[in-house]
């Protein structure tokens, strides 16, 4: 089995290096094809591993080589393929393969086509390290690796100039890339601290060894580690207050948004919490876990509210990603780790599909993303319309599509844990989710044709791209049907991830499900009435409402980016300038130069003694002699 582990891990790297060979040459279509084949190979290997694990239940654990050894510290490159990591591996490699194929079509006209594939495959490699690693530091390699690849890919169109925030909320691709990297770094510091804490208290960083030590650790250490690791997760998974980078990251090419900022990288934080489930299930850290659940719920609601008024197609999907990540954290925080993981997988499929469909629209509309400039696209882009509708239904959580099963389970968990406030908010958010996702579908594909008058002539995407997307559509529909077999699969891992609803909840399950469906359907109906109709009831912009307080508040993302700019970025720049010009040059350096100048001017001043007059010299000599005598006398008296 080791062979498959290494194939799954290194095939993407090989693909990336292969593409890098052609990185500075003009577009070569085979680079994309070979890249996709390598990722496909990784998917096959992952699938084989998953199947073997499913049938035999044996966890594969390989240790490749030493990495860092100093003092007692010893970390090696080790990989573990268990139920959790194999789920991630399969999801990641599958979505990656599809996105790679998709990108061959989407990046067709880009002159940096080869470079793009090099970065994209490097990302998959980093993600594989992240999920497969058997220790926290290995996870950290992947963690930083995906960060860098995300930086490269968000800033892929680096040549675009900075704009004002009013013109483009994300300013520019290179700005968004830096924002994403730096914000993640802030969180990474938290994660590093968690790693230090665990190392000094358990003597190891390997998952199994660390988790075996957990019962012997003090409460402070457990809580500290749980908080620190979660801070790391907050950055990668864009939880409040480190969330602003995710929407700005939409500046990257759409395949990147689909792969990195929807399906895989942003779920790394959720993965970390699931991976560390023994830590987060400790009774001592129950407060931290509850905080995670509450924050997740809050973010689910918060992000959904911003999506309600957004006009930018990609940013809506980004908000929905944020919101769904909130759902996952809610489940993980409440202890339903396997449900979180299941939602993670299902979400990856339908969200990637949604993004890729959005990419098709963007491609057709020549990078125009404003929903108000679209409308009635379904006639020209039938395939994309179908895909987007499937994905939106899945996202809205209507049975029997994937989103229903996983999201409903999360909401049910909140009920089961008697956290009714969370439950209420999650149900409400489910309604909002249905509303904004259908608002987006109706505004772009239904209603009145607003794009032809503006001179757009949309056309459908290449056929092979649509075909490549079909597995995602199928999975977005059927994933939910396998929830119970997945449950059996993941339960093999042991007590940690098992979670069952109580008898009482079980009893009420149908009603709870119906409530969720009711909210979701209402959302869709409202969206339909407002946006989908033509003629007399057709959608018209309402200036008055758009200038209202709430609308503006939501539109400006609660002024959080503005706040960061005014209270963090600008003061930091100002203090830095001051440190340089006022402190370093005028105090520290001036002191040094001052000493030098003092010595110099002292010499200059005393030079006047050198009159050349022998008589003066003799006088000074006498003064010196007297001084020496006095000193000698005094020291004789004292001594």
């Amino acid at each position, binding site marked *: 089995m080791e062979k498959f582990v290494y194939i799954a891990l290194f095939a993407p790297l090989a693909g990336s290096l292969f593409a890098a060979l052609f990185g500075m040459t003009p577009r070569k279509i085979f680079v994309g094809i070979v890249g996709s084949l390598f990722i496909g190979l990784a998917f096959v290997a992952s699938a084989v591993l998953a199947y073997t694990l499913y049938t035999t239940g044996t966890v594969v654990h390989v240790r490749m080589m030493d990495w860092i050894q100093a003092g007692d510290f010893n970390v090696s490159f080790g990989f573990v393929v268990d139920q959790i990591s194999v789920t991630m591996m399969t999801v990641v490699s599958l979505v990656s393969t599809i996105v790679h194929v998709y990108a061959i079509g989407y990046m067709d006209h880009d002159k940096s086509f080869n470079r793009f594939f090099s970065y994209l495959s490097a990302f998959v490699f980093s993600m594989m390290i992240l999920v497969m690693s058997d220790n926290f530091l290995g996870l950290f390699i992947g963690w930083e690796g995906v960060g860098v690849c995300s930086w490269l890919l968000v800033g892929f169109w680096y040549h675009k100039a900075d704009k004002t925030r009013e013109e483009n909320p994300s300013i520019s691709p290179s700005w968004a890339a830096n924002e994403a990297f730096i914000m993640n770094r802030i969180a990474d510091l938290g994660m590093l601290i968690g790693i230090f804490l665990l190392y000094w208290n358990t003597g190891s960083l390997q998952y199994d060894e660390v988790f075996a030590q957990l019962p012997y650790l003090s409460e402070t250490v457990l809580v500290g580690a749980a908080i620190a690791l979660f801070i790391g997760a907050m950055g990668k998974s864009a939880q409040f207050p480190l969330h602003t980078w995710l929407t700005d990251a939409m500046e990257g090419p759409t395949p990147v948004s689909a792969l990195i900022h929807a399906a895989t990288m942003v779920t790394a934080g959720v993965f970390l919490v699931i991976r560390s489930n023994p830590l987060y299930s400790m009774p001592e850290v129950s407060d931290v876990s509850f905080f995670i659940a509450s924050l997740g719920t809050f973010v689910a609601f918060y992000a959904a509210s911003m999506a309600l008024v957004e006009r930018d197609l990609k940013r809506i999907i980004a908000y929905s990603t944020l919101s769904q990540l909130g759902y996952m954290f809610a489940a993980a925080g409440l202890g339903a780790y396997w449900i979180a993981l299941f939602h993670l997988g299902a979400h990856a499929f339908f969200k990637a599909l949604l993004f890729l469909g959005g990419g098709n629209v963007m491609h057709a509309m020549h990078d125009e993303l404003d929903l108000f400039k679209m409308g009635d696209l379904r006639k020209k882009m039938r395939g994309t319309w179908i895909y987007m509708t499937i994905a939106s239904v899945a996202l809205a959580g209507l049975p029997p599509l994937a989103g229903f099963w996983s999201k409903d389970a999360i909401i049910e968990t909140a009920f089961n844990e008697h956290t009714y406030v969370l439950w209420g908010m999650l149900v409400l958010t489910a309604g909002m989710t249905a509303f904004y996702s259908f608002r987006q579908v109706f505004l772009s594909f239904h209603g009145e044709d607003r794009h032809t008058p503006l001179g757009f002539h949309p056309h459908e995407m290449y056929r092979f791209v649509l075909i490549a997307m079909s597995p995602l559509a199928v999975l977005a529909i059927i994933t939910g049907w396998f929830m119970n077999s997945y449950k059996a699969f993941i339960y093999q891992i042991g007590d940690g991830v098992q979670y069952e609803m109580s008898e009482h909840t079980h009893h009420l399950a149908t009603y709870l499900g119906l409530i969720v469906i009711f909210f979701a359907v209402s959302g869709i109906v409202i969206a339909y009435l407002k946006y989908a109709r033509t003629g007399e009831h057709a959608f018209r912009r309402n200036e008055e409402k758009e200038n209202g307080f709430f609308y503006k508040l939501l539109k400006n993302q609660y002024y959080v980016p503005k706040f960061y700019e005014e209270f963090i970025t600008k003061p930091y720049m100002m203090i830095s300038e001051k440190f340089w010009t006022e402190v370093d040059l005028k105090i520290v350096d001036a002191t040094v130069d001052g000493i030098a100048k003092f010595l110099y001017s002292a010499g200059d001043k005393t*030079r006047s*003694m*050198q*009159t*050349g*007059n*022998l*008589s003066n010299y*003799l006088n000074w000599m*006498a003064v010196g002699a007297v001084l020496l005598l006095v000193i000698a006398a005094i020291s004789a008296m004292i001594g």
Partner: protein
Amino acid sequence: MIGLTHYLIIAAILFSIGLAGVLRRRNLLMLFFATEVMLNAVNIAFAAISHYYNDLTGQMFAFFIIAIAASEVAVGLGILIVLYKKHGSLDLDDLASMRG
């Protein structure tokens, strides 16, 4: 009875006179005289202390000083004459070519 102290007082007075001359006088020739006075003050002290301790080393040293003073005057006066010929003055304030 005239004792060591008296001699030393005389030597100190003479030395001070010489020192004052060295500090105050501007004429080089006068400086030479003042230096001679100081040297002789030291000679008196040497001779007196030598006698006091019954040790001839001091008196011998005084002779050395007399010899050195004589040769110094010889060389110094020579230089003074050359200086006077060159500058027409022996005033120190006029001779400040070493000003820094």
